[in-house]
């Protein structure tokens, strides 16, 4: 069984994100970039399927400028077999990503496509669902457990009321939640081996996809700075402030 994993290059989760002074976007200059944590979980799940003998090949695909090859190499160091980069100048929006991935799926014919549920930069949570719709494939989103059984995959999903388990016919799309697994670290010998694994570069034109923009970024503002606390002199004053300033208590 072939597994396709889509990964994204994002700002490292340890970096404090700053907004550009003209508020047009976040500032990416000299910022450390990394593999999106949910994508890392997706790679780990695919590699575990391979180690268990369920999957025969793990293919990693990423879309973006040449620099995203670093993240493909990281995924290869984690245990994926080969990589595909679809080179674009910028990071395309979710629908374009889904269209490009759909073409890769048509070409590669994987039985299972695993994606992170969302990227930590845009937080859209759209690509997996859009890909499922474009390909008309069953989807199991927010997976906290994935078990392949014959020609089905059982996906346990984290939903508001608890856990829901779906049996999907393969081929299927799975998007990963935080608790699906704990990804391994890329070891030094595997980083060396990853350099020798094949990495194919394609363009949207090769795949016959025209990138169209459906949204326009108007403005980016940082979250409001938290105000310093104040000391109140009595319980009555505290209650008064909770009622009249914070408005978290009702009068009575």
């Amino acid at each position, binding site marked *: 069984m072939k597994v396709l994993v889509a990964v994204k290059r994002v700002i490292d989760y*340890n970096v404090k994100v700053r907004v550009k002074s003209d508020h047009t976007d976040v500032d990416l200059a000299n910022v450390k970039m990394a593999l999106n944590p949910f994508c890392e979980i997706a790679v780990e799940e695919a590699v575990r399927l391979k180690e268990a003998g369920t999957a025969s090949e793990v293919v990693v695909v990423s879309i973006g400028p040449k620099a995203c090859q670093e993240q493909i*190499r990281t995924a290869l*160091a984690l245990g994926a077999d080969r990589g595909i980069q679809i080179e674009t100048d910028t990071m395309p929006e979710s629908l374009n990503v889904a269209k490009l991935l759909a073409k890769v799926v048509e070409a590669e014919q994987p039985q299972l496509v695993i994606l992170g549920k969302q990227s930590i930069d845009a937080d859209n949570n759209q690509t997996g669902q859009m890909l499922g719709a474009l390909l008309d494939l069953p989807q199991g989103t927010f997976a906290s457990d994935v078990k392949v059984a014959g020609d089905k995959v059982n996906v346990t999903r984290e939903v508001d009321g608890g856990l829901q388990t779906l049996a999907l016919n393969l081929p299927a799309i799975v998007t990963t939640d935080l608790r699906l697994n704990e990804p391994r*670290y*890329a*070891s*030094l*010998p*595997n*980083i*060396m081996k990853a*350099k020798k694994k094949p990495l194919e570069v394609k363009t949207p034109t090769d795949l016959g996809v025209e990138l169209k923009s459906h949204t326009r970024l108007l403005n980016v503002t940082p979250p409001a700075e938290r105000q*310093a606390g104040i000391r109140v002199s009595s319980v009555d004053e505290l209650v008064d402030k909770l009622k009249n300033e914070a408005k978290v208590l009702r009068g009575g």
Partner: protein
Amino acid sequence: MDFTFTDDERAFQDAISRFLMTEAAPEALREIWETDAGRSPDLRNKMAEQGLTALSIPEEAGGLGMGDVVWSLMTQELGYYGIPDSLADTAYVSAGLIAALPETVADRNGWLEQIAEGSIRIAVGHPVNPLVADAHLADFTLLNHEGEIHAVPRSLIDVEHNASIDSSRRLCRVMWEPSNSTRVADAETGAPIWEEALNRGALSVAGQLLGLAQRMLDLSVDYVAQRKQFGKPIGSFQAVKHHLADVASKIEFAKPVLYRAAYSLQHGQADAALHISQAHVACAEAAHLAARHGIQVHGAMGYTWEVDLQMFMKRTWALESSWGDRAFHKARISAAIFADDAPLGPGQTFGRS
């Protein structure tokens, strides 16, 4: 001379940094200190699984065959995360020492393979260090007897613990009797090997000190950005900024000294010992200043047990005198630059290939 690191070297540093950031957080290290042995077999095994112990073992013995230059990055990470384990003594200093032993030493290749796998712990007792780190846990200790090299198993040594200002260190006074069965190299063969082990040990300490300096600077910058006085973060006051800017410039100026030393050692240059002593002095100065100014900007709190700064500060004070103190390294520098045939002058500085 090209000081830029290869993509591999940078990728290795990133990978180890990410691993240690998660697995060796200060609270985890404090828990390890509380154990009897003061070491975590689990953390050590994980570091071995990452390939850190295989880094400079030759490829034919199952290692990655990298050199001193990559260790100059890795030791900075070990220092930055305050790793108490004397891993570099086994994986870097001992690995170099054993690889330099004559092929006739029966256990040589087996030891190298065990280091690469992470299944062995080796302590090194060089005469420059009166005490041996982690000898109580080592499978065997490499010891010097009148220039000879002896590999002495744990069962044949007595250890007496010696407290360190850095409570995460485990230092031992080692008592042992040299014998023919423990000798792996005679004095003539051993002399250059011990010299190289000293250089490698000093370089390892220099890298760790630079990592410690950076950590203390980062902790201090975080603190002064949060701590407010007169309605502003104290980091906005010029006097505080200057303290930390001085540390940052010391660190930046120590880096090329460290990297040149690593390059010199890896390429067997004649003045490697000079460069290594310079690196030890420069990195120790940067770390010492980072500790001093770190305490200053933290106020009295920086010295307290609860604040993490003390972990890195005390490690700095302990390591400053490890593998040669300041006087020892300054004497080596002095001997090199005042030698009759010292390669000094612009022709020697800029005209070398």
